[in-house]
């Protein structure tokens, strides 16, 4: 479908979902702070995102400390070494747990796109103006199954 057929909201969502994870997270944070009054109860989703954001921030500190070039993330061993030197709050195991794998944490830091799950793909296509795609019809059914 041509971009011209999308509504401004669909276009914004499409462009947002093309961003690297850290940028998407920042968009989430900015919009959240703008839309929700301070002191609102944290949902499970926002807690999980915050925890992942903290984990990625630790990883970024380690990468800067280790003077890694852009687009490169520390290995578990390198992170452990940097953590001891910087006194970072999260262990590599905690980062792995929050991201359900070191690879995903690394991809979030470097901006590399991870493979979408079918559910994510359905949501992205439905939200970004790909109308009447069969994925949109199946989003709910897949969530239900």
């Amino acid at each position, binding site marked *: 479908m041509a971009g011209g057929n999308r509504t401004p909201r669909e276009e914004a969502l499409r462009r947002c979902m093309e961003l690297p994870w850290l940028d998407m997270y920042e968009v989430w944070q900015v919009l959240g702070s703008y839309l929700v009054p301070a002191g609102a109860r944290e949902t499970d989703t926002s807690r999980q995102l915050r925890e992942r954001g903290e984990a990625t921030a630790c990883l970024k500190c380690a990468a800067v400390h280790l003077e890694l070039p852009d687009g490169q993330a520390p290995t578990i061993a390198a992170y452990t070494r940097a953590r001891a030197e910087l006194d970072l709050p999260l262990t590599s195991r905690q980062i792995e747990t929050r991201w359900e794998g070191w690879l995903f944490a690394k991809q979030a830091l470097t901006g590399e796109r991870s493979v979408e799950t079918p559910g994510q793909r359905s949501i992205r296509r*439905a*939200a970004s103006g790909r109308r009447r795609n069969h994925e*949109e*019809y*199946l989003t*709910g*059914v897949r*969530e*239900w*199954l």
Partner: protein
Amino acid sequence: MTRLDYDAWAKSRNESSAERPVVVGATVTHGLALSWSWALRVADFEMEVQEAQRQYLDALTSSSGTLELIGVSGVALVFGVDRTTAQVMTGRTAFPAHVAVVAGARVWYRKDIEAHHAGTSIRRRTAGELQSQIVDSAEVCRTLGLNPGTLIAGIHNERPWAPQPSGSVSGKSFWLRNEFEQWLGDRKLRRSRDAKGG
């Protein structure tokens, strides 16, 4: 795993969640031009939607027997559109004429629709040209003095007083007139034999 189960879940989920609402089961089947069971197989990644639509079209066609008839659902599958779009398409003047109306639903020869889709020439037909050869459940009920529910139960339970349909199209059973008349003749013969025997 029925559509009703899903609809109940979708209603509750849409009421309680602030997330984007999910569509109800009828919209799923309508949009994909698939029955619920086929839509579930696609949702479960058992097959791609195109493959499911191809197989479902074959199943629909074979259920109509030797005539290879399809309804609006079949038209949607041939053209790869949803049922609403197919409904609109069938109203256009250039669209092939339906060959009969079965229990209120227009039906076409599959080959005509496929040829029209492919842009090849098709035999010119008169709307309803097959109608005289088709008997629908209303006529069967009138002829046999049955109500629709009794006829359906009789067919389902294979009762001797209920003729088995020659096929179904768009979910509606139909009988070929010659087969139905043959069945009526056989029934008359059976009854007179039974009367003599009794």
